[in-house]
């Protein structure tokens, strides 16, 4: 078998294993909700919309499935996968078990951008919350990148630590700005609304968000997957990676920018959903070990399924009310992670 064929075979086999699981998760996401809908109904709607089958379906049900639940499940999946992969990449690159997609100041910047638009009235109401969040995220990331560069990251042995420290400084600064804006001009309702958004919210998700989130998640995944072997080489630090032939600076730049951009877009669509990017990578590592060629697909799949499931729970756990998804991810995630942590420790002995 030629090298290219072997690669294609690997990819095809992976897709065959992952796609049914993903499809099942998305199907569950569209079926389960305040009104439960039968799977054949969901499939009929899909047949109508995608293939023009013209099957008889109640237009209300069709609207719920096609305009609300399906885009919501797809975005949750894309977002979960992207955050988990970003977490895997940053933990490996920065050699820090506590690194998550927000470590470069992205979530703090996004919240500042969001409150600047919604509360401080930046742009006079012409700008959307996502626009503000996205630009805030980029601004904060730019600040962190420049600070890390000025502090001597890149090349030097302590580069990873400098990036993490710059990220912490940036996050603190932008969190303080957010708090300042809220304290200065928000009323109680606005403050509550913003808090809800900060914990993650998929309620406003529609098809245009799908067309942004899904291709971006796939593109981000491909860039990161392409660098899997390079990430393995970082196991013993960046010097060791360099001595194994990895162009360390370039790989760091490409991967940090790719993860920052993906995360910034995801945050601007759904708010800063915590926990997924931090914990899913660790959970996936417990499942398949630290080798990135297996770890990355498993993390992406776990992240996607986990966030779709968390979204379902957030919609049904309190009748008539939707919980912020970040609350659910932490409430389910923390105990299950504790179990994995303890189990992993036992098998290691």
């Amino acid at each position: 078998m030629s090298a290219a064929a072997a690669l294609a075979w690997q990819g095809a086999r992976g897709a065959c294993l992952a796609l049914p699981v993903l499809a099942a998760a998305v199907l569950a996401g569209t079926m389960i909700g305040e009104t439960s809908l039968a799977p054949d109904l969901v499939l009929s709607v899909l047949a109508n919309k995608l293939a023009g089958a013209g099957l008889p379906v109640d237009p209300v049900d069709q609207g719920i499935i096609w305009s609300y639940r399906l885009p919501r499940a797809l975005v949750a999946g894309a977002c979960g996968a992207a955050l988990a992969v970003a977490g895997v990449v940053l933990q490996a690159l920065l050699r820090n078990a506590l690194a998550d997609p927000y470590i470069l100041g992205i979530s703090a910047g996004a919240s500042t951008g969001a409150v600047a638009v919604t509360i401080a009235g930046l742009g006079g109401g012409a700008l959307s919350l996502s626009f503000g969040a996205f630009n805030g995220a980029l601004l904060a990331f730019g600040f962190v990148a420049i600070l890390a560069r000025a502090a001597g990251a890149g090349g030097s042995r302590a580069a990873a630590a400098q990036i993490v420290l710059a990220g912490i400084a940036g996050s603190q600064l932008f969190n303080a700005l957010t708090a300042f804006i809220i304290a200065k001009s928000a009323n109680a309702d606005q403050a509550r609304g913003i808090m809800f958004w900060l914990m993650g919210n998929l309620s406003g998700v529609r098809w245009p968000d799908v067309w942004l989130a899904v291709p971006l998640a796939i593109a981000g995944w491909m860039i990161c997957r392409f660098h899997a072997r390079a990430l393995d080489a970082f196991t013993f630090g960046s010097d060791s990676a360099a001595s194994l032939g990895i162009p360390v600076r370039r790989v760091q730049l490409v991967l940090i920018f790719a993860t920052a951009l993906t995360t910034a877009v995801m945050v601007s669509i759904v708010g800063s959903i915590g926990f997924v990017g931090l914990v899913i990578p660790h959970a996936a590592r417990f499942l398949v070990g630290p080798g990135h060629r297996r770890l990355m697909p498993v993390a992406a799949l776990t992240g996607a399924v986990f966030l779709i499931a968390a979204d379902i729970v957030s919609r049904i756990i309190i009748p008539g009310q939707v919980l912020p998804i970040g609350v659910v991810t932490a409430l389910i995630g923390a105990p299950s992670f504790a179990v994995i942590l303890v189990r992993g420790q036992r098998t290691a002995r």
Partner: protein
Amino acid sequence: MKIEARSLSFSVRGKTLLQDVSLAVQPGETLALVGPNGSGKSTLMRLLSGLAKPSQGDVLLADQPLARLTRREIAQRIAIVEQQADTAERITARSVVELGRTPWLSALKPWSGEDTQHVDKALRTVEMEEFAPREWSTLSGGERQRLHIARALAQRPGLLLLDEPTNHLDIHHQLSILNCIRNLKVTTVVALHDLNQALTCDRVAVLSHGRLVALGAPAQALAPETVSEFFGIKARWARDAAGDAPFLSFQLA
């Protein structure tokens, strides 16, 4: 593979760590690098491996400037074992050695049976085959060191740079690793603390305060006068009852 340093200097933040060092290592030769703590051994290693760029001077690898090679091309020619490379990842011993194949792999050239053979051979060389499935965190310092050496061997380098490879090793493994290094066909530069071990290499270079102060055949470069002067002790040749080769004996000056 021949490597040559041409008047290398290296300074960081105004402090000169290495000054005007020139030396050449011939193909197949094993050069021992000795010197007191902070004499610039590790710095010279990093410059020779291209991990750091010299402030002045050039490194030539097989008569080609190192600066003109890409990281990957360098890694296909030079392998380095640095001191104290550690990880918190739950990686197996075998995967550590497999990392050595990184410079030879790409998207279009995935892992093959040949790579497996190189890994097996490297594990055998350092006597670590039985440890292959063990997790990194369960290994002793010496076992980890041997894996790093195996990783470097799996790179199939033409030049091997070892920064104090016998640190953390018990005497049996010190001797067996050194023996293994000397018998390798690759050119080797090895930084050592044990001067009597340096005596067994082909040639010895002595560094002191960032300068090359002696270079030549072991008995000549490590003459007791030289050793006494640069290490601040009193050295003399000694022989034991059974031995034929003299060794160095030390006491405080």
